[in-house]
C-alpha cells in the first residue's frame, strides 16, 4: 500500500494509467459526473497532492480502486474487488470522520426496474464487504442508479463492463 500511495503522488495526473491490480479495464472510464469531485485541490505546488482526507485525495489514493466491477447480472465480490475495497477501508480508517456513499450501477442491457434493484444489490455487496473490514455501517450509505448513469457510452461489451460497477464516493 505504501508504494501505491507514493505512486499516487508521483503520478498525479496519470491516474488512469495506474497499473494496480484490479480487474478494471485498462482504460478507466471518465469521471462519472457531478457526484464525484475529482478536481485536485489547487493549493500552489505542482507536485502537491490533493488535501489529505478530501474526496479528491480519496480518488487519487485509490488509483481506480474507488470502483469495483461486476460480471453480467452478478454482484459477488471477487479477489480484485476485495483488494480495492480493502484500500477503501484503509482510507476510511485513516479518516474516521468521513462518510461514504456507494453508487451501484448496471449496464444498459437490462430492464429498468430490475437494474435499479441490481444496482442496489451491488452497492450493498460492496458496503457489506467494507463493514466486514471494520468500517462502521452507519458511515456507509448506498444508492442505485440502475442503468441511468453510464460512464462508458458505447453499446459493446467493453463499455458494458465499465458500467457494471459500484463507485465509492466519500462525503464529509
Amino acid at each position, binding site marked *: 500500500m505504501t508504494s501505491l500511495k507514493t505512486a499516487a503522488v508521483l503520478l498525479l495526473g496519470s491516474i488512469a494509467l495506474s497499473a494496480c491490480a484490479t480487474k478494471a479495464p485498462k482504460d478507466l472510464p471518465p469521471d*462519472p459526473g457531478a457526484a464525484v469531485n475529482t478536481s485536485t485541490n489547487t493549493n500552489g505546488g505542482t507536485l502537491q497532492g490533493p488535501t489529505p482526507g478530501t474526496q479528491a485525495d480519496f480518488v487519487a489514493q485509490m488509483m481506480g480502486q474507488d470502483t469495483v466491477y461486476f460480471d453480467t447480472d452478478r454482484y459477488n465480490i471477487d479477489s480484485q474487488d476485495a483488494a480495492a475495497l480493502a484500500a477503501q477501508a484503509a482510507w476510511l480508517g485513516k479518516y474516521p470522520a468521513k462518510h461514504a456513499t456507494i453508487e451501484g450501477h448496471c449496464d*444498459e442491457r437490462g*430492464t429498468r426496474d430490475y437494474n*435499479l434493484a441490481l444496482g*442496489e444489490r451491488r452497492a450493498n455487496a460492496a458496503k457489506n464487504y467494507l463493514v466486514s473490514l471494520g468500517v462502521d455501517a452507519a458511515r456507509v450509505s*448506498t444508492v442505485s442508479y440502475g442503468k*441511468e448513469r453510464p460512464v462508458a457510452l*458505447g453499446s459493446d461489451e467493453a463499455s458494458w463492463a465499465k458500467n457494471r460497477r459500484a463507485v465509492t464516493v466519500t462525503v464529509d
Partner: protein
Amino acid sequence: MKFRLLPLLLLAASAPVLAQQTAAPTATPSAQPTEEGGLSGAVSDESDWQDLGIAIPAFATNEDVPTQASSGSTGATGFAVAQVITADLRNNGLFKPVGPDSLPRPSFEQVQAPEFATWSGRSAEMLVQGYVRASGDGNLTVGCYLYDVALKQQLTKAGWVVPPSDWRRAAHKCADVIYSRLSGESPFFDSRIAYIAETGPKDRRMKRLAIMDSDGANHRFVTTGQATALTPRFSPDYKSILYLSYLNGNPRIYIYDVERNTQRLLVQSTNPTFAPRWSPDGRWVLYSMAIGGNTDIYRIPSAGGTALKLTDSPGIDIGGSFSPDGSKIVFESDRSGSQQVYVMNADGSDQHRVSFFGGRSATPEWSPRGDQIAFTHIAGNFRIAVMSPGGGDMRYLTDSWQDEAPTWAPNGRIIQFFRTARGSGKASIWQVDLTGRNERRLPTPVDGSDPAWGPIRP
C-alpha cells in the same frame, strides 16, 4: 378542473337519439363481403386486420360561429374533428380512411341523409359523417354517424356535449364508436399516456414525467427534470400518477396529484422503492422495496395504511401487475438465477414460475382483457412478447435491438413499449398490435421511454 364530457342523450329534433351499441358482438355488414371475406368476426390474433375503405369528410355545422376551441370556429372544428378521427383509424393499421383534406364536405342536412351515390362512386365502403354545433352555453355538440355505403344503411350513431377545450375527446369518442362497431372490440382511443420525456447526452439524460393523449396531443411536461423521473403509472381515474423520483438524491416512489400539482411519498421509508403499479380498481398499489440490497414486492392501500409484504425470497422480486379481476399478480423474480415471470395470488400465496422459454423474461403486464401477459423477452436482443397467463402460446411481437416495458391499450389489443437505439441510447415510444404487423412510432416532442397507457376515460 372537473371533467365534463356528457354523452348526448337527446340531440335536437332533427337528430335521432344517441346510438346504442348493437347487441351483435361481431361487425358483419351481412351483404358486404370484400375480397378478403368481409368484416367477419372479431379482430383477433389470428385474423388479418382488414384494409377497409372509410371516407371521413369534414363534419358539417348548422352555423359557422366562433368557439373557444383551439381548433377554431364550429366549421373549422368540424374539419379538425374529421382529421383526428382519420388519424386515429389510420395510425392503428386497421383501416384505410380517407380524410377531409380530399373529400367534399356534406351539408348539415346531408349528415343524416348521405348522398350514397357520390360515396360509392369514390369507392368508399364506409362513410363517417357528423356535425359540430355551438350550444348557447359555450359547449359544443358533436354528432357522429357511421354508414355502410353499399347497404345505404346507418350502422351506428352517437353524440356528445363537450366543453370547447375537449373537442378532441369528442373526435376520439367518435373514432372509438366506429372502431368498436366495425371490429367488435372495446374502444381505446379516448385514453391517455404517461411517459418519461428524455433529453441530453447518454451519460446525463434529463428525464421528466410527461403526459399526453393516446394520439400524442395535449402534451404536458409534469416535472421539471431537476430530479430524474422514471416508470410512471396513471391511476385508473387519471387523477394521479405513481412514479419514481430521485428527489433529494434517493430513488423513491411518489404519488403525483395531476390536478393540484402536488406529490407525496408513497411509503415513508429511507429504503429505496421501485416499480409502482396500481390495482385495476385503484385501491391498491404494488411496489418493490430494497432492504439491505434484497428487493421484495409489497402491497399498500393507495389511500395510505399498512403495507403487506408479498414476496420473501433472497433474490430480486420486482414489478408486478394485477389480473383485471384483482385476484392474481404477475411479477418478475430472479430467484431461479435469472429474471423470470411468476404468478401469485393477490395475498402473495401460491407463487409459481410461468416463463420457460430460455433466456430471461421480464416486465410482465397483465392484459386488461385478462387473456394474455405481455413481457420483455431477453435472449441476446430485447423483444416484446405475449403469452397466456399459464405461460403457454408465447409469441414475439417485435424484433429490434432493445424493446422493453410493454403497456397495454385499454382494450388489450395494442401494446406500447419503448425502443432504445444501440449506441446513442436514444429511446422512443412505439406501439404494436397483437398481430405484430402494425408497428409504429408515437410522436413525442423529445425522446420518450417508460410509457404507461391508462384506461378508457370515463
